[in-house]
């Protein structure tokens, strides 16, 4: 005790130091969390940037009538014509193995690309033409500078010979990089240079549509009942406990429910947006109900009392006066719930939305992929070029999530009334 009075400054110093330390712990904790956020998003953006551009190689193709019959363009053997053109570009390639590598400079789709270019512009027929083709994934990485050429030849995917060809082409101005429109207009593909996200994106949009149509009306009616009408009895309490628990059930369990009930008992079609949307709607239901109830609770009782005093029935008071005032909050909660559903992967894996789907789905009963599942599939793929595709798909997903959340914030700011 005497110590405390004789050396007050020392004690005060120690206490002040403890105070500063404690404050620093808080700052460091926030710092670490935010650093992680920025590193994660930053690294994905850096990795995904490459997928926005694609490499092309120009090859001279002889389109004389011997090779392509102008009257029967579709009967042409485009693949062998392309191979011939590649051989003509590098005439000193002789061995079978080397030729195979030479053909590998271009994407496997090169025949189709040639056909499409001819059908689009038949005027190019008649003689030799220099045309642009998509480079294969490994060459694309090489042209983007993503291949470490200082490694031993056996340890990289590009041999010295291939690099030499590309150097020759580049020196002649026959390679280029351009915006990768295919990434947004193609479906999934086994070939990284051809793979796009359109089918997955459409699948996600259809799934969300089903999810919204099922969960929004159900959730809003449930919230109104629980908040405005439900008597304080055991049943209401039980419903409430159920909703709170459902909000915390692991998402994969909903997937198991979908598999056992929707697919096996009700026999709904596997891998479709219909089933995916239904499963996700069960998951988003509690989120929307909880948000909607909070927003209904924020409407002051005076509004209800005024409506009831003017002779409105309870249902009229609720639907004509209370709900419209709570709607911005309800919509905000719905959008947040939809954003969660958009990023959800595990339950979709359970109901078979992991199949390889290249076609763009046009209805909710066709098999479809979804954006997060596509990310999962690409992340598993062995080709290195899929890493940047995966990152780019993640960027697209994050952009959608940001847009949805901005919309939610906008709605809240613009329409929310404070009472």
């Amino acid at each position, binding site marked *: 005790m005497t110590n405390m009075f004789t050396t007050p400054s020392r004690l005060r110093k120690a206490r002040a130091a403890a105070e500063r330390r404690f404050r620093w712990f808080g700052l460091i*904790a926030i710092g670490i969390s935010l650093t992680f956020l920025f590193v994660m998003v930053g690294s994905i953006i850096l990795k995904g940037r490459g997928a926005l551009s694609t490499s092309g190689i120009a090859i001279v193709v002889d389109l004389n009538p011997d090779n392509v019959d102008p009257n029967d363009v579709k009967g042409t053997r485009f693949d062998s014509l392309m191979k011939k053109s590649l051989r003509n570009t590098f005439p000193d390639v002789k061995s079978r193995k080397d030729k195979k590598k030479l053909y590998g400079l271009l994407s496997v789709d090169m025949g189709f690309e040639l056909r499409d270019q001819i059908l689009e512009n038949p005027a190019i027929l008649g003689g030799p033409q220099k045309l642009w083709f998509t480079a294969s994934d490994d060459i694309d990485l090489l042209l983007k500078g993503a291949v470490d050429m200082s490694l031993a030849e056996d340890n990289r995917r590009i041999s010295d010979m291939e690099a030499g060809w590309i150097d020759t082409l580049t020196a002649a101005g026959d390679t280029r990089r351009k915006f990768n429109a295919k990434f947004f207009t193609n479906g999934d593909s086994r070939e990284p240079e051809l793979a796009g996200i359109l089918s997955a994106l459409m699948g996600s949009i259809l799934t969300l549509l089903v999810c919204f149509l099922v969960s929004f009306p159900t959730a809003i009616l449930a919230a109104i*009942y629980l908040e405005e009408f439900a008597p304080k009895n055991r049943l209401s309490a039980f419903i409430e406990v159920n909703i709170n628990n459902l909000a915390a059930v692991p998402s*994969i369990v909903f997937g198991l429910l979908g598999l056992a009930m929707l697919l096996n008992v009700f026999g709904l079609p596997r891998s479709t947006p219909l089933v995916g949307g239904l499963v996700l709607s069960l998951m988003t239901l509690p989120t929307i109900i909880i948000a909607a109830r909070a927003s209904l609770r924020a409407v002051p009782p005076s509004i209800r009392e005024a409506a009831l005093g003017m002779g409105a029935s309870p249902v009229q008071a609720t639907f004509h006066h209370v709900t419209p005032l709570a709607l911005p909050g309800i919509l905000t909660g719905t959008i947040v719930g939809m954003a969660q559903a958009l990023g959800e992967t595990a339950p979709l894996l359970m109901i078979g939305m992991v199949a390889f789907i290249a076609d763009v789905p046009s209805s909710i009963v066709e098999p479809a992929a979804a954006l997060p599942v596509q990310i999962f599939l690409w*992340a598993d793929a062995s080709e290195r070029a899929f890493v940047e595709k995966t990152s780019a798909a*993640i960027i697209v997903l994050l952009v959608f999530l940001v847009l949805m959340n901005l919309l939610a914030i906008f709605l809240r700011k613009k329409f929310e009334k404070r009472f």
Partner: protein
Amino acid sequence: MPENTSIQVRDFEITTGNRSKSFENIVVALMIACSAVAIVVTIGIIFSLLFESINFFKKVPMSEFLFGTTWSPQTALRADQVGASGRFGAVPLISGTLLISFIAMCVATPLGLFSAIYLSEYAGNKTRSIVKPLLEILAGIPTVVYGFFAALTVAPLLRAGGEGIGLNVSSESALAAGVVMGIMIIPLISSLSDDVINAVPQSLRDASLGLGSTDSETIRRVILPAAIPGIAGSLLLAASRAIGETMIVVMAAGLAANLTANPLEAVTTITAQIVALLTGDQEFDSAKTLSAFALGLLLFAVTLILNMISLKIVNKYREQYD
């Protein structure tokens, strides 16, 4: 004339009154039905998991499932094949799940708690309005993104770091999955703890500060003890989220069912196994497929108990100060 109008008005009232009454009854019934969906879903989950699990336990005794230490679920091609029956001991999966969740909680608890304390007790309004939404972004990022980051960036980094100091870190280590999962649940802990800390009455703070304690002394000796039940509730909720998390472990933790407490080795979890068992081709009556439902039942039961306890604590605590 005046009498006539009054009758008309009364007629009008009576008819609309009757019509709206029956209509309103329908609306109310519809609303009750929508609320009951929550119960139907819960019952659906319990029944579908129970039903398939019972089928599973007809083939594999429950004691083997709960206490067996070998997990190798394979379907036999021929009846006389070696190991045709498969082994369904869930202990390695449970231990793997607990190990990864434990690592996640070790990361998330200090970070989340200190963030919450700083935000609620120290930060000014401006800092709070910037940092809080940023932390919540962490909660909004889909878990498949965390999984990708864990598998592609964190795991190789840990492996390289381990090599640097002479440790052999598996490329699908529990550590990588656990750390990334921990980051994912930071916002859950921080926002829930923030709420409970804010719910501690200002009078307690004022009294402590008035007696001459510093801010940190007030927090440690007065506010945290008062908020401890609520914080415990939020930690339980976070643990339940970690146990049920799927994508991060599927992508970063792998499928090797090792029974180990070493965070540098590869382990697998209940959720990762459910995904592995149910994706791809499946026949519905094989023990392999059915075991996924038994695992799902286990997962559902554990998370349900954790959620119930934590919700109870949080609600009780909220009432205490209201």
